[in-house]
């Protein structure tokens, strides 16, 4: 191979620079998101661990129950009723989409299409 002395170090430098973001951030998960929980509420409709991983499953389940089964009964937590709804239910307590939903969704780079149709609380007029 001609110019072995230049090509191989060149390749090594290129690979090093190219993978810089990977090894520079290795073992560091960045700043974990801190969604702001609504003040004055102790309990959600399900345990926090479940909500953290599976809130979207619950939303789908609620949607099917409400429109296909007409099961619209409220969910009672400590004697307080919560409707099975995204806008009037979840967002009733979690009133700030930017400080609650978006923080994790942005961190995890997921783009749910809820808000194509549903209104986040700020659009209340």
């Amino acid at each position: 191979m001609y110019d072995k002395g230049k090509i191989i170090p060149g390749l090594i430098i290129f690979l090093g620079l190219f993978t810089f973001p990977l090894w520079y951030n290795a073992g560091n998960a960045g700043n974990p998101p801190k969604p702001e929980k609504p003040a004055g509420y102790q309990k959600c409709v399900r345990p926090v661990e479940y909500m953290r991983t599976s809130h979207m499953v619950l939303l789908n389940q609620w949607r099917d129950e409400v429109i296909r089964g007409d099961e619209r009964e409220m969910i009672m937590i400590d004697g307080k009723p919560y409707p099975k709804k995204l806008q009037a239910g979840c967002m009733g307590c979690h009133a700030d989409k930017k400080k609650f939903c978006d923080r994790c969704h942005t961190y995890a780079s997921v783009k749910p299409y809820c808000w194509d149709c549903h209104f986040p609380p700020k659009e209340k007029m």
Partner: protein
Amino acid sequence: MDSQRRKFLKMAGLTAVAGMGAPAINMLLKGEVRASETEASTAPALPTKSVKRLGMVVDVNKFGANPGLAQKCVEACHSIHNVPDFRNPDGSIDKKDEVKWIWAEKYEHTFPDASQYKRNVGLEELPVMTFCNHCDDPPCVRACPTQATFKAKDSGIVMMDYHRCIGCRFCMAACPYGARSFNWRDPRPFIKKLNPDFPTRMRGVVEKCTFCAERLAVGKIPACVEATGDTKAMVFGDLNDPNSEISKILASTFTIQRKPFLGTKPSVFYII
């Protein structure tokens, strides 16, 4: 040798024909053959597919007697449900993008199968309110490949689940009443005044009247019926309940349905 083979083949053929034809003959003799998969729609007292069967009676004459009432109904429905208003630069409705849940139609377009020869001239000006018929045998539900549109078992309402709609528009092709609209564009910028209590739709889904299922759930009546007020131009109720107001009206008044011969069994009736 040859003649024997001919005989054998003839016998074999005849046996095969007889074997294949026997079940058909059997079925004909038993009288099990029907021209159609479902019973004729004219047969009385057919069991319906839902516990309740919500329906509507529209008195066209009362809309004629109250000018502006039709527009009021449309406004009430479309403002509550965030229905976009697509207009051409000259102010006319953009027919291509138009989204409608309820609209005023001409008599001859609503009942194209009725004879138009020598008919009452006054009908020309009457607005006939048209919306989803919430058929008992809805062709749109049969056509939907994702079950995004379905018949609610307890109310008989033909519901929409916009989350599941993939925008194939088979339901629009299947609906003989033109009651379904497609969102060709993002509807949000075209909604005059957003109602924050009801979601909008997104681009690429089909929408239609749902008999105000969300209002019925909280004990209200459909918005269009509410808009007609005391005029009784629209009466809403359960067709399966013989004591409901609507059942009594239907029992005592001559009413017509849109295209009943198609066998969709519409739940909307018209007093002309």
